[in-house]
């Protein structure tokens, strides 16, 4: 499988993602520069990595949605291709309208970097198929704007359609304000679109891909994905 990693000038997790896909998972990878107009035809999965796309002095991802590459990413998604946004990538997907909702500044007003616990809410999506429903995993977060918001009506639709993939929780899997690091509505950490080919999450699976760095829970997200084959466009 070939992963296409989109590189905005301010992306800073692009090489980390590349390391996970190529070294750990032994898959083919290719960087897609933000100025490229389309997704190259040999790419099976598009990944939007973390970072600060164009500096994000405005709302995170607000400028990136206008970049040439996003036109291609939208077309790729509309054709059924798999798109995964991690952290800043999630912010870009939300700004681009490929995923619903918005990501606001963390409730604390501060950037937060730490490992958090996540509960698998739905394992019927390509990236969660390797986990059990209700399973608690640990992944790092590192963001200033990860406070997910969606209006109540749209939120109930998300729930109904099973689009919530991960929720912040305690080590035991309970939902609580203390375990919600950024104030997200419904403790939401990651979602997908209704068609389940576009995924967005604030946590960084690529940072939990090596026992040496404290965990491997992130690897399974992609291992399961590889066995299910993802969704080809």
């Amino acid at each position, binding site marked *: 499988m070939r992963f296409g990693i989109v590189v905005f*000038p*301010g992306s*800073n*997790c692009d*090489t*980390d993602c590349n*390391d*996970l896909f190529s070294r750990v998972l032994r898959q083919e990878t290719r960087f897609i520069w933000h100025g490229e107009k389309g997704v190259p035809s040999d790419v099976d999965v598009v990944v939007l990595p*973390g*970072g*600060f796309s*164009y*500096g*994000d*002095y405005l709302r995170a991802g607000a400028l990136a949605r206008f970049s040439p590459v996003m036109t291609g990413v939208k077309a790729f998604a509309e054709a059924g291709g798999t798109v995964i946004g991690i952290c800043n990538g999630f912010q870009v997907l939300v700004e681009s309208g490929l995923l619903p909702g918005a990501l606001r500044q963390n409730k604390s007003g*501060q*950037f*937060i*970097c*730490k490992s958090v616990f996540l509960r698998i809410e739905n394992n019927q999506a390509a990236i969660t198929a390797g986990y059990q429903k209700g399973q608690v995993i640990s992944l*790092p977060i*590192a963001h*200033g704007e990860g406070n997910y918001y969606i209006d109540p009506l749209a939120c109930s639709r998300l729930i109904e359609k099973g689009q919530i993939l991960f929720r912040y929780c305690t080590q035991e899997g309970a939902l609580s304000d203390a375990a919600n690091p950024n104030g997200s509505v419904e403790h939401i950490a990651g979602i997908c679109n209704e068609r389940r080919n576009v995924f967005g999450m604030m946590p*960084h699976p*690529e*940072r939990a*891909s*090596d026992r*040496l*760095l404290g965990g491997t829970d992130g690897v399974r997200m992609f291992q399961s994905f590889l066995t299910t084959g993802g969704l080809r466009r």
Partner: protein
Amino acid sequence: MTPPKLAHPPFTDEEYAKVEVLLGHPPNPIEQAIFAVLWSEHCSYKSSKRHLKRFSTEGDRVIQGPGENAGVVDIGDGWVAVFKIESHNHPSYIEPYQGAATGVGGIIRDILAMGARPVALLNSLRFGPLSQSKNRYLFEQVVAGISGYGNCIGVPTVGGEVYFNDCYANNPLVNVFCLGVAKREEIVRSAASGVGNPVLYVGAKTGRDGIHGATMASAALDPTTSTRHNVQVGDPFTAKLLIEGCLEIIQSGHVVGMQDMGAAGLAGAASEMAARGGCGMILDLSKIPLREAGMASEEIMISESQERMLIVVRKGGEAAVSEICQKWGLNRAVIGEVVEAPFLTVMDGEKEIVRISTAALTSEAPLYDRPIAAPRFHEIIQSLNVEALMLPKSYTDVLRQLLLSPTLTSKEWIYQQFDYMVQTNTVAGPGGGAALIRLKGSDRALAMTVDGNGTYCLLHPYQGGAITVAEAMRNLVCVGARPIALTDGLNFGNPEQPETMWQMALCIEGMADAAREFAIPVVSGNVSLYNESKGLGVYPTPIVGMVGLVDQIAQRMTPGFKRPGEPIVLLGETLEEIGGSAYLKVIHHQERGFPPILNFGREKAVCQLVLEAIRQGLLSSAQDCAEGGWMVALAEACLLSSPPMGGVVAVDAGDVRLDAYLFGESQSRVLVSVPAESLDRLKQLAHEAEVPFYHLGTTDGDRLQVRLTKTGETIIDLTIEEMREKYRSGLGIAMANKRGMT
């Protein structure tokens, strides 16, 4: 529009006269501005240079010592580590967010200018007590500034240290350490060479920010005047582009020399590059990308606008370099060329406006042998009547208070705001001992730490300086790393006061002696003077950033306990040393006495013992004893244990006062936990190394309990849960100002 008039440069009469002689005429405004920044303390080291010569700068691994943008050491397999520490103290007081942010930006560019990719940042911070709202504001904004800049550029902030003390209230200290890695053959120097080679300007446009930043940093802070315009404004996004762009430019093979335009701006970069290469440089100001119209020539020359690099390129390489800049959206312009005559010539189009010998700006800068005198208060603050100190009623309460004090408490409130994981190499991040960064594709890891103790240095500058080096070494050793080199960040008061010079000279002597004894070369450094406000100087605060190497990452060591039922051992001797301790300050509200005495031989023996024990696989954990003594080290080993576990220990203080025994800060001690079957072997090794060995107790349960051997009386009893709660909430409580504490 008439350009704003520059403040009169701070020359002494003698310096002004010397400028006149060197130029052969009275300096015009642009000459004055250029001389002022290059002859500033920050650029010329005029008060510190003769003392810095004490540092031993050579070693087998040293590829580049002091005198370049950063030091370079060999880390094996053709790779090198490039590192340096730099201060941004005055800007961080005037405009804390931008001051701290550009402090990060400045040191990043120093590392980048050597051709290395920055892979780790650490910081060393000093503020006034958090009981005052202004100090809370400065602290919060400095942390936010480091966070805002460091996170965006994608370089992990993996460690640091912070202290709070009255002496820093009007002059906080913000020192940032950066380490980069590069292939040995890709290292770039900052010397210009090759007559006719073009000089390229790359990066952000030049604006009016940071005018005379280096001069401001070289004078005392005057709270009555506004110096905000002296502070640079950072743009981390452009910094990220500059990192990627410059590394690609170096890869292209066209680069002759590179230097960042930071302190002293274009004038500094151009004259230093030319002087290092023994050549000259001609620049055309009309070619420089400007942010605003109407800037005076002197403003353009000395602006400290951020995210700019000066690059000498092999003739013919301009187009290729320009193309890389375009890819990364960086401004670039050929602004001059290298010439043979050793002069900095500045043109404005066809008109020559300045021609100064590069030597006049660099090697001819004044050098001072400033008078030195011990402060009158010295003997008074060194005296401490220990008998008059009441023994605490509850040692449990003492431990509680120490764990809550901002200086000793968990720094999670700070480091949670820093991305310490990006680049996915952080094997050990903030919150434990030294940081560890793996080198992808090898079994090795780099360990790094920053350490300083202003109180010790105030009470006894020589001991304080020496301990700073020893403490850093011990931190590295406790993660299983062999120290390979260090960088020094020297923060002192006004060098025109003989007492400050006395502090500086002795601190440097102590550091230099310790570093030589431990065979750790000094490869780079920074001097920040005039850290004073309203006539009051900060404590002498030298900081050491030290780098070590772990050969087998599988053998790294961590500070927390691992398994219940394992013996807890204290390696090293506990003396009745209470002077300058955190215990004395937090509990008895005194900062005085004689700091602990460092015995070089004992320190080496303890460190070698710990490294050997780790190599032989004898240890489960190792934690250095520093502020708060071995008792706080023990509490930390419990708090950092995984799974959470406590310990039961029994102590016999012998002739030593019990409070000094528990919380005193005797040097050269390491607290370890050991699998039971390895205990005898460790004891044997300690005996051979002539290192005292105390089997204190056992890891176990969910409490930390300390008993007296003789009476069986329990003197400390705390649940791990309560300790954790105290330890983690200290800074949060102080910032919420629920209780004013220092």
